[in-house]
């Protein structure tokens, strides 16, 4: 009993520090959750308490409505946007891994300062803003006949996911001792086998980080998604939501909140599931 009290006392400061942060960070999600089920009458009345459903009652669901969420799924192309986002995200992640894994490994093992310099050079490519890059890419996409096709995004997105992922994986591969590979080679493994059997499994946190990072970038990206895709049903979430749910000068707040909360939950779950590995992935190359 006394031990439990002592443990609780010890963890109290942690909770005191973390508690307000957690509330602060979770509040936007709570706000979205509450708003998406609000009646217009409730939302637009400035005298109402905005954090709950009005009129306030124990059976709070009687003051709420699902009609705006239904509107999102039945009267807009939101389900298509979700599917399109998933298709683009998965395809880009696969392409990114195919290119960034060998590139990151090669740069990590490149002797001398060349590897480091090349790594930084590749990372700098990531810093070129899409607002500039879309200008030359726009006629290119048109020339390839990829306008209004998800393929245009699958082609263009790796231009910013690969540089960062390569740089990230390069740092991670450096943390893996060369001796492990040497031992595998001595035991008869080929270079490729050593990679697939030894290096990549150990690098799983780094690879997962790249997967989550590349996928998040694809979900969040707006400029290319807006420029290259013009038809409503072919859009991804990032360009479909602001185009369909801000109509003229009227915001459809409840549907907007639902539309943004749903993918946020998926991403949050993804991050949380692999949180430890994710942190390892980002800090893996920090001391090398």
């Amino acid at each position, binding site marked *: 009993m006394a031990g439990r009290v002592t443990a609780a006392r010890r963890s109290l400061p942690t909770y005191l520090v973390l508690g307000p942060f957690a509330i602060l960070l979770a509040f936007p999600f709570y706000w979205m959750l509450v708003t998406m089920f609000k009646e*217009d*009458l409730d939302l*637009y009345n400035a*005298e109402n308490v905005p954090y709950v459903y009005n009129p306030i009652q124990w059976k709070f669901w009687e003051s709420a409505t699902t009609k705006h969420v239904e509107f999102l799924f039945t009267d807009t192309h939101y389900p298509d946007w979700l599917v399109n986002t998933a298709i683009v995200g998965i395809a880009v992640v696969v392409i990114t891994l195919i290119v960034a894994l060998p590139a990151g490994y090669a740069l990590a093992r490149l002797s001398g300062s060349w590897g480091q310099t090349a790594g930084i050079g590749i990372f700098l490519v990531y810093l070129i803003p899409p607002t500039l890059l879309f200008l030359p890419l726009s006629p290119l996409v048109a020339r390839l006949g990829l*306008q209004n096709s998800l393929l245009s995004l699958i082609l263009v997105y790796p231009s910013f996911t690969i540089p960062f992922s390569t740089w990230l994986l390069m740092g991670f591969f450096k943390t893996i001792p060369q001796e492990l590979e040497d031992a595998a080679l001595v035991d008869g493994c080929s270079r490729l086998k050593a990679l697939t059997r030894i290096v990549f499994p150990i690098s799983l946190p780094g690879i997962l980080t790249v997967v989550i990072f590349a996928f998040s970038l694809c979900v969040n990206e707006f400029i290319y998604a807006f420029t290259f895709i013009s038809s409503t049903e072919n859009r991804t979430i990032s360009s479909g939501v602001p*185009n369909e749910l*801000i109509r*003229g*000068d*009227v915001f459809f707040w409840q549907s907007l909140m639902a539309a943004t909360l749903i993918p946020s939950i998926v991403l949050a779950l993804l991050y949380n599931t692999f949180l430890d590995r994710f942190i390892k992935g980002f800090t893996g190359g920090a001391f090398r």
Partner: protein
Amino acid sequence: MADVLDELEGGSSTLTRGDLLKRGGAAAFAVSMFGALPDKALGFYGPLKYQNKQLSGELKILQWAHFVPSYDQWLDNTYVKEWGEKNDVEVKIDHINNALLVATASSEVAAQSGHDLFWFISPPSSFQKQVVPLNDIVQEVTRKLGPMAKVAKKSTYSPKTKTFYGFPDDYAPDPVQYRRSYLQEAGVSLRTWEDLRKGAAKLKQIGHPVGLGMSNEIDSNMLLSSLLYCYGGFIQDEENRVVIGQGANRKGAIEALEVMRDIYRNGMSDEVFAWTAASNNQAFLAGRLSVALNAISIARSAENSGNTALSDDTWLASIPRGPVMRLGNEHVMGVFVIWKFAKNKEAAKKYLVDQQLGYREHFIRSQYYNFPAWTGAIKGGFKTIREMTAQDTHKPKGKYTILTTIAEKYTTNPGHPGNTTPVIDEIFQTWMIPQMFAEVAQGKSSPADAVKSFNRKAQGIYRKWKNQGLV
């Protein structure tokens, strides 16, 4: 000019050589491959989509996401489908947020690829070199419906090139929307700008400030240029020459700047410098604002919210009168253009003509937001429009009839008394008007200096477009 006309002539053919070769090839292929299977004899193209019709191709349209979702649903799922079947055209219609229209248009022009028909929320005169002149269909519709509204003509006609670079489809009058109870409580009238100048402080005192934007967004552009008209501070003259820095125009512009500065200082808050087009809607619907200038999306949103206390108290009025006149810009001037690179120009033209001829249904389904560019599209013209709007059941009964008066008497085009030239378009697109007003309201510049600086920039823009032969 000649190349545009050549293109028009080329485009008027219903079957090009390319089409002929394609279809001939398809037929030859079909006969050789499926000659023994009569039911599959059109295997290459597939069976004709609509009975007894020739497949004419695809028509791609882009326009804004209308603030009335049911209008877009009807347009996309009923109107466009029926029109497509009737004309044997596969119509694809896309909608985007109105704030992204110009960026999307620029992107399509850069890529020389995109939609056949592109709808703009305000006259896109700076895109003139990229579009097909539409004099022929303007004449066709005018023959059938009578003259188009003056606001529509001056928005889309270039006197320099003598062409209609765009097809005026619709426009939205821009009424003042106000909370009647707040104005009564404060004892404020909206008859003149001077009344509002005097009453702004009282409205702010009762906790309900005035909401007139001075930000880089379309509502501010429309409202503030309207204020300039009311005080006689015209940016250009009837010959489309920039004159704001001269004589009575300069004096009027300075007075308008002073009025807005006073209304801001006494009756508004600094949020108006950071507004988007939706901000006045949101602040009004939240019950904060007493006065806003906007199309009827505010009043309609109030009604749709079910908050009758708010919607019944939301009244509409004409723009206040200034010492020179009572006149305001349209809030929206819906203009379609057909890009030079459009693939199905003929179908695009037919779509525009047919839509205008049957605009009555669009007017009703848009909840009286979209006024037809040809008033004759609604049989009986403004008289019928007044009767239709009077039938709206929302309280106060008949509040929408004022829209007819505004449309008929107090609505003009950006650039009044001239046309909406590329100069005006660029001034609007670069937000020079709200920036001039904001600088004076914030005390960063005197009204005289602000007009001087505005005039200098506007003259530069005028010279640029004059060199290009468009003004």
